[in-house]
């Protein structure tokens, strides 16, 4: 394989980090620029260049560009990322508590006889709860809201109408969950302090309320297109003067 062909293959592989719609639209073009920037004899993408392509591509996947004109949607998308951040903090605190209880176990081994009966019974109760299956379940359940926030941020940012409806439904479920009318299937870990246990749901619920309000503002509705034309922005814009005479065959990356 020639140097050029192997370099191009390397770049094509890296371009897979970008969303497919963007790749279809701009992939050829970026590839041409990458090849033009590469010095002669380069066989594979450089480290800094690769990092730039990977981070730009992932950023675009995770955070689609919402036009400045759709300010309410931009605000809603930012709030959803904040929701994801709060849920991640929740997960981290959960892990820290699990770590703490595991440490108590070690403390008990050393100080066993010096602990009061109440402390011993609390520790053994907590430890009996903490089997691997339960920890795994708790962590997975804490990961779900993070994933849902990110998913909704992305889909709403891409102007998908179903995402707006689904966000609203999810918010409804969160409301029922918070008010205790309905409990989402899951487990409540007793050792997570009640203060945190109550703060996080309320915080994320408030974020959700603001998101739903923003998404249904009249200013947002122009951004949400009817289903089927959601890719409108990435479909080729009509070049104003010359249209290329020979259309490029679609190339798969």
């Amino acid at each position, binding site marked *: 394989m020639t140097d050029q062909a192997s370099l191009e293959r390397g770049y094509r592989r890296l371009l897979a980090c970008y969303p497919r719609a*963007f790749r279809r639209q*701009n992939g*050829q*073009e*970026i*590839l*041409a*620029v*990458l*090849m*033009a*920037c590469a010095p002669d004899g380069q066989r594979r993408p450089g480290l*800094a*260049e690769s990092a*730039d*392509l*990977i*981070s*730009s*591509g992932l*950023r*675009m996947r995770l955070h689609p*560009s*919402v*036009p*400045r*004109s759709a300010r309410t949607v931009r605000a809603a998308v930012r709030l959803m990322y904040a929701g994801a951040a709060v849920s991640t903090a929740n997960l981290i605190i959960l892990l820290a508590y699990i770590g703490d209880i595991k440490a108590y176990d070690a403390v008990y081994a050393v100080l066993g006889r010096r602990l009061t009966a109440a402390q011993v019974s609390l520790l053994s109760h907590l430890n009996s709860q903490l089997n691997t299956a339960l920890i795994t379940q708790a962590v997975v359940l804490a990961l779900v809201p993070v994933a849902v926030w990110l998913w909704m941020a992305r889909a709403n940012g891409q102007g998908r109408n179903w995402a707006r409806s689904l966000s609203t439904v999810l918010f409804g479920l969160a409301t029922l969950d918070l008010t205790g009318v309905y409990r989402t299937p899951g487990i409540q870990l007793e050792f997570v302090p009640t203060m945190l246990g109550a703060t996080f749901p309320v915080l994320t619920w408030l974020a959700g309320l603001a998101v739903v309000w923003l998404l249904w503002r009249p200013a947002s509705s122009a951004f949400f297109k009817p289903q089927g034309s959601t890719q409108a*922005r990435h479909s080729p*814009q009509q*070049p*104003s*003067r*010359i*249209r*290329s005479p*020979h259309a*490029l065959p679609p190339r798969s990356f």
Partner: protein
Amino acid sequence: MQEATFMILTALASGSQHGYGIITDVQEISGGLLRLRPGTLYTALDRLRADELIGVDREEIVDGRLRRYYRLTPAGASRLGAEADRLQAHASAALTRLNLAAGTAT
């Protein structure tokens, strides 16, 4: 406005350019200090297109590869103008104060 964005708009201010042209032009304008990487460039271009500050001028095929030329929209030109004014005001304020300080020191 980020520096890369400002420089891309500046590169397009005098006429349409394609991606590689923007990179070399930005490097020249910045005196070799700012070398945009293609990934960064296209992320910025995507955002600028979404905001309708730039648009596609035309497409060409060169050596079997697609080359897309971008141009500034009127909205882009006015954003760039406003940003340039702001930066100029800040720069001249800085220089004025430095001169004042130099004046009082002597």
